[in-house]
């Protein structure tokens, strides 16, 4: 439906067009979205736990976690509130490297990410492995600020950004696909920006 009196204002150049998923617009800033106040997690209190169901597999303190191999990942990110940001540069520990350090293969098909503030989000395990996702420790070469999820946040750049849990403190392998915080509150269970899977009931 064409809106009377509305004309293209910010149509991006065609060469970047292909990088913007449907319904998104390009934003130069980096908006902040979260459901509650920003937790201030001190690195001396920080830990990261890998779990299989209720059972802890391995737990890392900040210093231990920082000895794991660092990988660079520069990706476009897409927030469900419709902004897209190009070329965000992160460094962190690939989920593959976390699993290798714990000495396990992914035991189940689904994963629930947990955060210090009680936030959770679910991601199929295959969307976290094979270099697709990391626990990011640096943004643009600097420690991630608390507003953007520091000290560490999950980075799953090919899904809507609510899947990239801020203040992450663990990954839990689950037998079933367990909906997380926003997934229980009307957001899509998978969240592929290219299929515009924003809300429950989207294709």
């Amino acid at each position: 439906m064409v809106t009377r009196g509305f004309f293209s204002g910010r149509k991006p150049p065609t060469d970047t067009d292909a990088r913007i998923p449907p319904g998104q617009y390009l934003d130069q800033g980096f908006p902040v979205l979260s459901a509650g106040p920003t937790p201030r997690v001190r690195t001396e209190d920080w830990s990261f736990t890998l779990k299989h169901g209720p059972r802890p597999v391995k737990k890392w303190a900040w210093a231990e976690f920082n000895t794991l191999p660092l990988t660079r990942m520069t990706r476009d990110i897409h927030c469900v509130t419709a902004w897209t940001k190009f070329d965000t540069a992160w460094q962190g520990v690939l989920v593959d490297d976390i699993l290798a350090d714990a000495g396990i293969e992914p035991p189940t098909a689904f994963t629930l990410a947990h955060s210090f503030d009680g936030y959770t989000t679910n991601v199929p395990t295959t969307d976290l492995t094979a270099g697709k996702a990391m626990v990011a420790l640096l943004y643009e070469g600097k420690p991630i600020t608390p507003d953007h999820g520091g000290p560490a946040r999950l980075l799953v750049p090919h899904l809507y950004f609510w899947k990239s849990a801020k203040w992450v403190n663990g990954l839990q392998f689950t037998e079933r696909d367990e909906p997380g915080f926003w997934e229980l509150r009307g957001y899509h269970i998978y969240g592929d920006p290219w299929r515009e899977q924003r809300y429950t009931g989207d294709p």
Partner: protein
Amino acid sequence: MRDGPAAQSPWQTARITRIEKRTPRVTSFFFQTSRPFAYRAGQHVDVRLTAPDGYQARRSYSIASAPETGGTIELAIEKLEDGEVSPFFHEVAAVGDEVELRGPLGGHFVWSDSDGGPLLLVGGGSGVVPLMAMVRHRALRKSAVPVALVFSARVWDEVIFRNELLGLDDRRDGFDLVLTLTREAARRPADYSRRIDAAMIVQSMARLPEPPKLAFVCGSNTFVSAAAQALIDADVPPGLIRTERYGV
């Protein structure tokens, strides 16, 4: 929490039935949806505009009206100079125009009187909009839940819904309005003229019969970060604080 999966909400057309200027920068647009539209106070909608060449722009706007209002929903839209959707509403949109709308959306920043209280609401600028839906919902339900609304605006003339809020405050029925102006002197004896801080939150909460069961904070990202920290510094447990941030 009373959250459940939202029903599927496809796009629908909505017609503008009324336009009302609220402040120099904020105007309310009232929409008649083409299908029944049930929502909860605090929820938002996505609005989509389409240009003749197919280009689309979408933005989220909080609903200002109470669910009890019936057939129309009110969106109070602030004009952002470098925006592409809000200037359309402020400069082009007229009564009778149709836009596409989807919702209601959001299952976290919501309150119904059955959720109980007391309630602490903290809004900055147009961040008051979803809180206004809660305040109106409470009034229309004749709810006895104690509510304190701390509303920060730059100047008196930018206090959105000012007359309505002052009228509700005058009822003394358990709703308390605390205004703070950041660029002007306070106009009422118990109001403030500074940015929200922990001391202001402590004093505002003292107007409630007991500590809040839930707190909702909405505004720009800068505002929400500072206000949420003020609540935490005033000993509001972080787990009770729900936030909604807009803009960049």
